[in-house]
Each structure stands twice: as C-alpha cells, then as structure tokens.
C-alpha cells in the first residue's frame, strides 16, 4: 500500500492509466501523483494546456489525455518525479518509456540499462533510445528507454549498467 510501502497499488495505477484507444495512438503522459500535496508546476509546464489549472494547490493533477501530445516537458518539471510518458506504438513488442533521471553520469543513447519496477525489483534490461537534458530541464534528464510491451505498467526507474557494476564490483571510495 502506498502509504505503508511507497508502492502504488492497482487502484492508484488505474487512475493514472490513459484509456486503451488513446494508448494505441502514441506517446501519452501517465501522472502518478496519487496523494494531495501543495504543488502545481506540472500545470505550468504543459504548453498545450493538457494539465488543468489547479483551483486549489492541494488538488490532484487532472490531465486531458486527448490533448496530451506526449512531449515529456512535464516529466522534467515535476518535483515529485511522478510523471512518465509511455509510447506503446514503438513496435509490436516494445514500448518507449520516458522517465525522469537525476543520476550522473547520464547514460547515452544505445546504452543498456537495468529496468527497475515500482518496488525496486530488477526486471531485465532495456536500451536507451534518447536522452534529453537541455538547460531548461535544470538537471532532471528525461531518458527515453525501450522496454518490453508487457512491462509498461511495472517499470518506473533505470539503473545504468556502470552504476550496477560499481555496486557489485565494490568500487569503494
């Protein structure tokens, strides 16, 4: 349960999941911000106005998936690192997942990375498709990773391989 473990449950995810038709049309944002907190930068970040203006700053964000273009700007702007963009049209078996990443050194396009689930379990490998880290993103990079279609609801973080090797190889300083 989210408030005991930090892991969102299926009812929570249900709320974030865009509908089937929209998911088949290309990249779209999944906003996984499930508890009310005083916060609203996601609204300001969206250029097409897909994220509704907050009447009360404590409201949960409300997104119009039809209006969302899947650009990923809100992914970098969300201080809760709670927004992901998923493109399930990438290929028959693979999807593209855009996630916020604040670990250096950044991976490069083409790098293999370990996929991590919401509960921090390793779920195989993915490949970095694109890295977006312009100045405007202020040190939160958006990494587009190619992942298996059947993992789009599970994977929410990556560990670049160099980081994994450091941990296992015992590079202690």
């Amino acid at each position: 349960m989210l408030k005991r473990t930090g892991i969102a449950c299926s009812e929570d995810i249900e709320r974030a999941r865009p509908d089937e038709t929209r998911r088949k049309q290309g990249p779209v944002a999944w906003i996984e911000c499930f508890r009310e907190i005083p916060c609203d930068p996601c609204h300001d970040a969206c250029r097409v106005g897909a994220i509704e203006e907050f009447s009360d700053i404590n409201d949960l964000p409300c997104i119009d998936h039809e209006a969302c273009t899947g650009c990923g700007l809100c992914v970098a702007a969300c201080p809760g690192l709670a927004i992901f963009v998923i493109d399930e049209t990438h290929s028959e078996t693979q999807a593209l997942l855009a996630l916020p990443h604040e670990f250096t050194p950044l991976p490069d396009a083409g790098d293999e990375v370990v996929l991590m689930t919401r509960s921090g379990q390793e779920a195989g490998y993915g490949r970095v498709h694109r890295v977006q880290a312009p100045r405007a993103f202020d040190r939160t990079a958006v990494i587009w990773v190619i992942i298996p279609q059947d993992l789009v609801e599970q994977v929410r973080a990556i560990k670049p391989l160099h980081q994994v090797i450091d941990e296992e190889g015992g590079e202690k300083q």
Partner: protein
Amino acid sequence: MIWMRECEVAVVGGGPAGLSAALEASTLGAEVVVLDRDDGPGGQLIKQTHRFFGSRAQHAGVRGIDIPDILTEEATEQGVEMIFGAEVAGYYPDGVLTFKKDQKWCKLRPERVIFCTGASERFLAFPGSDLPGVYGAGAVQTLMNVHGVRPGQRVLMVGAGNIGLIVSYQLLQAGVDVVAIVEAAFDIGGYAVHASKVRRLGVPIMTRHTVTRAHGQQQVEGATLMQLDEDWDPVEGTEQYVDCEAICLAVGLNPLAELMWQAGCSMAWIPQLGGYVPICDEDLQTTVEGVYVAGDASGVEEASSAMMEGRLAGLGCAHSLDRVDSDRYRQRREELLHELAALRSGPTGAKIREGLQKMQQAQPLRQVLVEGSDC
C-alpha cells in the same frame, strides 16, 4: 572595541524566512540588517538539491539550492545589509542584540526584530547511539551537499518523513547504498511521491520498525532493527541485523526559540509545531511589542510557508514603522495570508492547522509560570 549601532529592523537568521522578511520590509522602505551565523545566506536551503513543491510564488520547481541566490540578489538591490559569521547570543530587555563577529562581541539596537532562527534536529537515544557514525540528517546533508563527503558507503536511515526520504534519495545520488528506511509510525510521514522515488530504486521502507542498537567498537558497523507492537514496544524475536557504516537520524525538528525566551515572549508547548513556540498574531508579532518571528522558529513547516511568514513579518514591521499606508498594508496582508492558507489547506497541512488552532487557545506559559510562583 565594542561595536554598537542602531537600525530599524534586525532580522536574525538568513534562511528563506529571514531573507523574505528582509526583502519585504526593505522594499517598503525600512532599513534592514540581517545577521546570520553561517558564512552565507540560505539556511537549510543550501543543502536542498531537490526541486521544491509549492506554487510559482514560492519558487516551486526550483531547486532549494538556487533559491537563496534569487532572494539575496533582490535583497541586495533593495539595500539590505547582511552580516554573516555573526552568531546572535543575546537579546536584552533594553532591546539590544549581542552578536559575535570575528571574535568580537558587537551590539545592535533595532527598533524591530524578526527572529528567523529555524529549527534544530532531534536525536534518538539507543544503545550505541553515541558511536561515531550516528548522524543527524542535517549533518549528513551538510557533509554531502556542502562539502562533497560521503558519510559512509552503507547507510541506515531512521525516519520516513520528507527529510528522511529526501536525504535517502540524495545519498543514492551520491552513490551511497541506503540499506533501509525504518519508520516507527504506521504510515510513511513524507509525501508519497518522495517515498515512491526511493522505493523504485530498491530502498526498502519498513514502517512499524525502529533501530534498537548500533553495533561496533570504534564506529558504527551495523544495527539491530526490531518491529514495534501496538504499544510501540519492540516485539521480542523480530531482531534483524543490518550491516551499515552509518546511521542517519531524521526524527524531527524543534524550533530554535532560545532568543525568544530571552526576549520574554510568551511561549506555548505545541507538539504539532515542533515544541515550544512563541505565541504570535497573524502579523507574526509575538507577545512582546516589536518582536516578530517567522519560519521554522515559529513552528516547523516548509520553506514555502517560511517565505510567506517572513513576508508577513516584514510587512508587519514596515507597517508599524509607518512605511506603508493602511490600504496597501491590508491588501498585501490579505494576499499573503491567502497564499499561506492555500499552502496549508490540504491533508499535508492538517498538523499545522491543528497546531495553529492550539496556539490561538494557548495559555501563555510565561504568565502561568509567573502566576504559579506568586503563591
């Protein structure tokens, strides 16, 4: 040589509350001096490498470390004088502040004073808690984010409030392994989004657990964790040993209120606000005329609300010095109170709202003590 001078408004503490107070008062034309014992402005913000919540008025989305620069630049433009390396040690009945600067004791007599001294960390006592390697979360943040030093390669975090969760994330960013986050309460106290972001990087969050012992000869080498029962007592047989080089305590903060005790402000014990706090009105004026408080010193909360409180206190001072006409004062005050209320209106503000309500009903402690000693 004793240095003594006067000024209109003295602000003690140059964190988000103090800088905002100085900015508001000086913008309205008051002469302001900020005193801070640190070497530069920012208070807690200089360690907060994460992006802040709140709305645009409170610099939401900006990283904590970048906010002091924004505020300092504006304050400097407004002619605020800032004296760093200046530890305020006393506030005397004649309204004189004493501070130590370059090994000298200096004096300042302000017409108004705003205490924005922040808060100090709580500690937890358990066998072994005096071993080197047991740190407060603030110390760990200072080591990592100010000095670039890791506290150890494997760290156990105690406390799953926002501070525990955020410092855990920052430890991961520094390449440190966080073995677990233990939390005595039933639920994670911090924001769910912060919990999720450390959880998905593989850090277990163990609610209803505590640390019962730190192991090691010269320094921390490990810790025993135990589950807690309904009465918050450790359950026999649930001992679990974890290997770690450091234990980081993030178990809460207490307002730093010594100077306000000294000033003779009426104080109240309000657990929801972190402990003893001065009783104050909506302008953040304490029960001593001309003495104001803002930020964590008035109740442990957030930088976003600290900035709004600082603004209110600065405005109140400027108004009492006749620097702002009543209409403008009322309008600005409404604006700020509205923003503050909005920040506190959601479920995360419930504790603060309860605390503030208690403050309204609080028996001024000093008076109670004095009355008690009469009979």
